[in-house]
């Protein structure tokens, strides 16, 4: 520890950074209230909390995007003022945003150089930038090609570019805002390897997440925020997932929902050797045969991009089936229009809810009738029945506990969890016979996740046949009666829940028969 006040990047360390008594108010909302937070060189400090707990606000204050109403920031014990990201970068603080700040049509080197003065004045110095990128990539073991275009890179690689960008600008402290939200499980592992290396080299990392297992895996300390206040800070090794979860939501959380006993009934949904293409022109599904019974949840597990999207879309009529047949309650529905399939009481909770499940500029009430707007009591003879629509919206808002100022609020103003509740309310309130739920809890906080899962179980109890497509193995294991593993457009195996273990499913997901 003698000479190493320097990081491998040549920049001096941030031994400690402390935020004291940070308070930030927005009109009508107290985003942070007297929050203390600190991070030291050589540690990952996780910041945990449900959506809207104030994590992002606190970090945006640290990065200079917001100014605190009260409180101070100390860097290596000395008070500093951070009034813009420029200041924070100058102090050695870098931030990896949840949504990448990269220009798709530029190369890696160009993106890194963007906004920085060139060493050659008016001329670019991309060759020098590239050289430095390669140096940094070598030091931190980040495989990256400086001349590659951003659009050619996978999401995980793009994140590495963001990390390089921060390091290039001399970041000693890195804020990672929900870095794993967009990554596949493998990419998460790769990111963790990089993070561990950086910590070993003396960087300080702040890891924002609401995924408990990741926090437990990667962090040294963890601070939990709730409603803008700090609930506490602990050594990660001295806590359990259950403790953290209780802290986050402020009550006991039942991890394994009560599934209850349900009679498995007749076959509601049947796929026979279904074949279809994918958006990339490669085969999407290569002969999938499945059936889902009434009162059953069939989990479909798999690594992202192995045909899950195509599976949901062929069933719902959104993607052309090129071979095989789909049956809904005994009747063939292969390649019918989406509306015709929907009308046969099939409900769909789409993966990309903002794009496919919602009309952002429609009100909550209008969104609630998206599927049924042409039916009584929402319309008659082509005219909308505003009273019926309004009553329906009121009922569903109450029943599904949607947090919204009013039913006239535009959907885009709701939080992610509440948007999913609107989708869920709309799809479930029709009393569907079959439900296709694609990644229904992705990106939701614990409270909303729990709620969505509960609702799926309620529908199962009512006798619906449910296909749950999820990349979250815990979710699959907690909810499913049987688990189908999909790999490269084929079903590897279908295992009953009783005999399914994460290890066994993991092997199947990797394309290996145990």
């Amino acid at each position, binding site marked *: 520890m003698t000479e190493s006040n320097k990081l491998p990047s040549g920049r001096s360390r941030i031994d400690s950074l402390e935020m004291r008594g940070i308070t930030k108010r927005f*009109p009508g*909302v107290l985003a942070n209230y007297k929050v203390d937070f600190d991070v030291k060189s050589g540690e990952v400090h996780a910041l945990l909390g449900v959506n809207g707990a104030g994590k992002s606000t606190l970090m945006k204050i640290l990065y200079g995007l917001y100014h605190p109403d009260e409180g101070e920031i100390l860097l290596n014990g000395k008070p500093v003022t951070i009034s813009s990201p420029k200041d924070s970068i100058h102090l050695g603080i870098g931030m990896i945003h949840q949504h990448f700040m990269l220009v798709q049509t530029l190369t890696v080197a160009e993106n890194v150089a963007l906004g920085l003065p060139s060493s050659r004045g008016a001329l670019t110095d991309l060759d020098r930038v590239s050289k430095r990128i390669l140096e940094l990539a070598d030091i931190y073991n980040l495989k990256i090609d400086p001349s590659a275009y951003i659009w050619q890179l996978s999401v995980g690689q793009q994140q590495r570019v963001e990390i390089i960008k921060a390091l290039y600008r001399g970041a000693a402290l890195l804020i990672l805002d929900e870095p794993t939200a967009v990554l596949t499980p493998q990419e998460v592992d790769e990111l963790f390897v990089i993070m561990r290396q950086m910590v070993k080299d003396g960087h300080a990392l702040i890891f924002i997440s609401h995924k408990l297992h990741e926090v437990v895996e990667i962090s040294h300390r963890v601070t939990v925020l709730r409603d803008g206040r700090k609930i506490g800070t602990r050594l990660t090794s001295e806590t359990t997932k259950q403790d953290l979860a209780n802290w986050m939501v402020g009550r006991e959380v039942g991890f394994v929902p009560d599934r209850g006993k349900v009679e498995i009934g007749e076959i509601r949904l049947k796929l026979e050797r279904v074949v279809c293409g994918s958006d990339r022109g490669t085969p999407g599904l290569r002969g999938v045969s499945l059936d889902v019974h009434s009162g059953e949840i069939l989990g479909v597990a798999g690594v992202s991009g192995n045909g899950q999207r195509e599976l949901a879309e062929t069933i719902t009529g959104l993607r052309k089936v090129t071979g095989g047949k789909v049956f809904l309650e005994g009747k063939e529905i292969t390649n019918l229009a989406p*509306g015709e399939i929907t009308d046969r009481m099939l409900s769909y909770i789409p993966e990309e809810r903002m794009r496919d499940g919602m009309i952002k500029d429609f009100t909550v009430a209008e969104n609630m009738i998206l599927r049924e707007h*042409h039916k009584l009591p929402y319309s008659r003879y082509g005219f909308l029945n505003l009273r019926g629509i309004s009553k329906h919206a009121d009922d569903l808002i109450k029943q599904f506990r949607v947090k919204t100022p009013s039913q006239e609020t535009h959907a885009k103003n709701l*939080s992610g969890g509440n948007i999913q509740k609107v989708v869920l309310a709309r799809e479930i309130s029709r009393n569907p016979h079959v439900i296709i739920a694609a990644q229904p809890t992705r990106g939701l906080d614990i409270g909303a996740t729990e709620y969505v899962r509960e609702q799926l179980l309620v529908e199962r109890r009512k006798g619906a046949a449910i296909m749950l497509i999820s990349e979250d193995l815990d979710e699959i294991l907690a909810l499913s009666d049987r688990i189908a593993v999909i790999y490269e457009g084929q079903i590897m195996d279908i295992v009953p829940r009783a005999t399914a273990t994460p290890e066994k499913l993991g092997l199947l997901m990797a394309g290996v028969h145990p």
Partner: protein
Amino acid sequence: MDDAPSYGYLSVAVIRSLQVESVLHEVMAATMKKVFESEWVSRLIDGLLPVFATLAALLVGAVMLLFLKVNPIEAYKALWVGAFGTSNAFAETLVKATPLLLVGLGICISFRGDVINIGGEGQMIIGAIVATWVGLTFTTLPGWLVITLAMLAGFAGGAVWGGIPGVLKAYFRVNEILSTVMMNAIAVQLMNFLLRGPMIDPAQAELASKIPQTARLLEIFRLPRLIPTRLHLGALIAVILAVLVYILLWRTTLGYRIRAVGQNPHASRYAGIKVPRYIVLALLLSGAFSGLAGATQVFGVNYRMITDGSASGFTGSAGFNGIVAALFGQLHPIWSIPASILFGALLVGANSMQRVVQVPSALVIALNGLVVVFVVSSEIWRQKRQRRRLSVARQDGDSPPPADEQPVPHTEAGT
């Protein structure tokens, strides 16, 4: 502070009053803040924005007038009097506003469906041609019947002319901006051909001048006048249709679907709406209203179809100005009524301004352009403002506090 006794009392009074003032100021500021943050005030500001933008444009216009050594007050007075000064002037304004409103209603539909219809000119022309043909062909039928048939024919003609680009967009992914503009060119040439050839006024056919115009409609086929001015029934029809379009867009499943498809075709498709069908319908209806605008011009104003060889020779550019009027009315059919009247007034008033203060007509066109530029910029500003408002309300993706749940009180002690 000076402590001299003579000033002592005064300074105390000043400080007191300052304190009172600062308290007052705080209260005022808080109230103002509340007022500005409340939803309906925001909406009011948004609603009045075009008016402010227009005033700003007239201000810049005043500078231009000063450069021309014309007294702007005098000029604007002439404009005002020319547009609203007499009942005749006001009637003329409404006559000019009528085709703008009809085209604008169609624009409300198509733009709400995210289809950019730039083909109002062509659709007006086709509507007018078909309506004129009806008027010149069925000369033995009663007047009310021919007028009704002609209006319907104009509606249908415009619908076809709008529907073609609609089909091309929905099923062959042809950009509708391009195709509607191209359809304009086709319509103009068709009009020129017909008005110089098959449909030419028999009187003109014998003359050497050969002015491209059709024969005059029978007097009984003219749209009835509302008051003893040039104001005709078309204006009333347009206002009634504005209400009907409002109902169509917000009270029928058809309008719901057009808006849904316009906002998010993906979600609409997932919800079982046949997206291409509603793209076609949006453009078709839009074209139909322009077609009707063309028909009313013939039956209410000119009583024949006449041109100078260009599109605007017949339409007076109403096919384009209607787009501006609709945007000015924030794509709302009811708000499009005052917006159309404003632009009608500018057209009419500018003429009289030209006469009274002797400014070149180019300035009048520039003034119109200024209004458009200012309105469009104010619209962009409004959207930015709205986004900012929303992002503050959402506060990092959090939902706004629901009405029944108070936000965390500020005074409560932490942790």
